[in-house]
């Protein structure tokens, strides 16, 4: 969330909106940093000691999801185009012709014109003229399968028939096309912590975007994080919650794409070894009863597994009362 962003994220304090404090911005920057850190032969471990764990893991995760969405991977565009090709004609899709616009659509038989392949998306019913858009590989991510729904096309539809992302999300993503966040399920990061606490922070804390001193949009962190346990089956997800009481499944372990955020000592001590190849952020509250055990565990890994490779942490001062250690660890 650099100074070039045209918006300022706000939180509610006694009925008034205040801009997000520096400590929260720092956590977001930790998550953003991870999104650009390579993880081939080693992964990044960032351990953060804080005076209170509140919102730390949630904001780190937001940073990861936002940054991941902005990383346009050409391979994923090509593979997505291939997947669209395999859809049965008549499959419902959402077509996003532009920012903030979404249309209901039905996949039609693809075509090859002048040696180029096109996906065809019908957006008006036959009675309405049967308007059909031709979409090439460069715009493939504008078309997303609408899982779990079925619909008939209207005769005509305006360009905001479906809102897949709200203004809050659009603003947070900046220049990134929100379509990536909108409909495609993936697990960018896993959050390991107490369900009730994280739900309170992610789903029940009102936030807002202010532009030029005026409130522009309201939302919650969940709008961006799309935690799998806080959504209904029709919605897509971007992150997964691992409650302290349940062992993460092998499916979940293998499907986390970027990193794992441990909210507190217990989750880290229990499941810290489960993800062997993904980046890790460990948020440790100084008041946690298992704080010392977790510190010993981090220190043991630092002294035994650390590799002296390029490792950086976000610019700027660490938040008051915090201590941050970042190191690279060889991937087994």
């Amino acid at each position, binding site marked *: 969330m650099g100074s070039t962003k045209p918006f300022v994220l706000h*939180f509610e*304090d*006694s009925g008034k909106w*205040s801009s*997000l*404090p520096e*400590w*929260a911005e720092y956590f977001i920057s930790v998550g953003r940093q991870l999104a650009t850190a390579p993880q081939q032969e080693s992964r990044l471990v960032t*351990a953060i*000691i*804080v*005076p*209170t*764990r*509140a*919102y730390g893991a949630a904001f780190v995760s937001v940073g990861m999801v936002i940054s991941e969405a902005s990383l346009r991977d050409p391979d994923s565009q090509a593979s997505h185009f291939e997947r669209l090709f395999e859809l049965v004609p008549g499959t419902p899709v959402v077509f996003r012709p532009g920012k903030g616009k979404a249309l209901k659509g039905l996949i039609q038989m693809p075509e090859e014109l002048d040696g180029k392949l096109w996906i065809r998306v019908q957006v008006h019913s036959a009675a309405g003229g049967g308007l059909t858009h031709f979409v090439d590989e460069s715009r493939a991510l504008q078309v997303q399968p609408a899982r779990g729904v079925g619909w008939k096309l209207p005769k005509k539809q305006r360009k905001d028939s479906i809102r897949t992302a709200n203004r809050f999300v659009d603003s947070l993503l900046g220049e990134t096309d929100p379509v990536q966040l909108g409909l495609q399920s993936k697990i960018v990061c896993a959050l390991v912590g*107490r369900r*009730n*606490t994280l739900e*309170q*922070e992610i789903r029940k*804390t009102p936030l807002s975007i202010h532009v030029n001193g005026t409130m522009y949009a309201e939302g919650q962190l969940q709008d961006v994080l799309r935690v799998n346990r806080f959504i209904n089956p029709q919605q897509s997800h971007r992150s997964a919650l691992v409650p302290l*009481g349940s062992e993460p499944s092998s499916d979940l372990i293998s499907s986390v794409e970027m990193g794992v955020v441990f909210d507190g000592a217990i989750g880290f001590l229990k499941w810290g070894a489960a993800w062997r190849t993904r980046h890790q952020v460990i948020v440790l*509250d*100084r*008041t*946690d*009863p298992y*704080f010392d055990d977790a*510190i010993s565990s*981090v*220190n043991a890994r*630092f*002294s035994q597994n650390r590799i*002296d490779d390029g*490792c*950086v*942490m976000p610019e700027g*001062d*660490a*938040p*008051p*009362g*915090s*201590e*941050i*250690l*970042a*190191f690279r660890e060889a991937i087994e």
Partner: protein
Amino acid sequence: MKPLSIPYATAVYGDASQCEIIRQWVDHPGLAELSRSLRALVQSVGDEAADEVWRRILGPIRRTAFALCSTPLPFAHLAAGTGTDWDHLDRLVRQSKYLYPDCYELLHRVSGELQRLLLENSTPLIAPLESLIQQHTTISVLLRNPRMNRMVADYFASSRPLRTASVVSASQLRGPHQCMALAVMGPCSWFPEYVFSAPRASVIHVISYRWIRDGWAPSPRFLHKTDVRKSASQTHRIGKMPAIRSDAAADVPAMEDLHPADILPPVPVFRGGGFPYSSSHAGESADVVPARLCHLIGNRAVFVAADDGASSLIIDASETEHAAVRRVLVDDLEQGMYLLLRTSGGGDFIAPLADRLLGKSSTKLRHEQAEWKERLSRQAFEQFGSKSRRELSSLVCSHLQSQGMSQAHSANIHYWMSSKCIRPRKREHFAAILKFAGLEERTEGIWSAMLEIDRAHRRAGHLIRRMLLQKIAGASLEPLERDGQMDFELGDQGGGSLSAYEITDVPAQEYDIPSDRIGVLLDLEE
């Protein structure tokens, strides 16, 4: 830990940034002399301090001396609060003249000096608090011994100059408690480090006797590689931490100063309490069950059943806005939860209420429950000879497995034999053990009776839970969070009185314990 809002978390970061830790020293030459003499005595007794006689002598002396050094109450006030039987102690001291002649002189002097101090109607720890209240209007006060919290809070409430002082626990300082000024009674190392490194106050006054060393300062917790080439390390950073200053220039420690650990009373150790506590000690006649020792606040402890599926009733004040009362498996018991125990009449609070719910039939039903267990134990004894309960369980298990009950487990049979168990979960298991006990023909009738007892226990559990929830909804839980202990009177509704105690540790070690010791509060200080 209760969830904190963003504004509150911001205030916590603000406190970490601005907090100043100020050391304030107080003096009392008599108490200093006593403390040094006591340290010399403990050193001269050496390893013998663990002996029964020395424990009974030194225990109360060290606890009282510690209370004088750590509690903002007039010494005479403390004399009444410690509950020490000084006449008995004097007798023990006199006896020691013959048992331990080398130490007698010193012991006699320490005991006499301590009793003289307890006549003083003041303490040097109060004046700084009065001064802080004038400065800050209100203050929160943290004590090393949470068992003194209630007494000190009552004293503050009755004292005009201290009326606006409130007592807080270290547990409260993990969560949303926040204050302008916090007064900590004693050196920093007596308290969890987070009190100072994650402060919940703008200023912390550490009020301690000058002759107790206190060298605590914030330091890095992570191992790290020092990067001398760069001004800001790319791998390790520390945010702004609370600053420390002293109110006196002369705070250089003297040679004869005491280490904070020298003042603390001995660490309580569980010594078995005179009943079997391991499988090798359990006799064949004992009604023993597997149990874990749950450590509670204030050096107390309680055995909780550790058999498969056993659960305990707790108050969980964390996570949600309102405290919850729920059952928790023994493996899920955690530090910071509040364990509910029956205050009087034994540890089990469900069975007496269940009997009331069963009415007149309870006698007959309980008789049947006792009968099948007695027949099961007797049959095992007759078939396999005089052995421990655990060994008999294992032999019965092998027998049942040979009869086709492949799911039989020794631990389950051990539990089924105990009076705490009502019935196995599965009817076929019950039929198999009744067949072994020679009660096969009565299986149907006894199974129905056990189901009836089981239902009554469940109803009793629900009733207790509901009554507790009503009590909690209408009461402030601040005393529970402050003292780590709170009593709930459910007598008017048939539930008796229950007490909640904060759990401080649940070690994994298991004991074999007589079933009637489950849920009984143990005082590890005695």
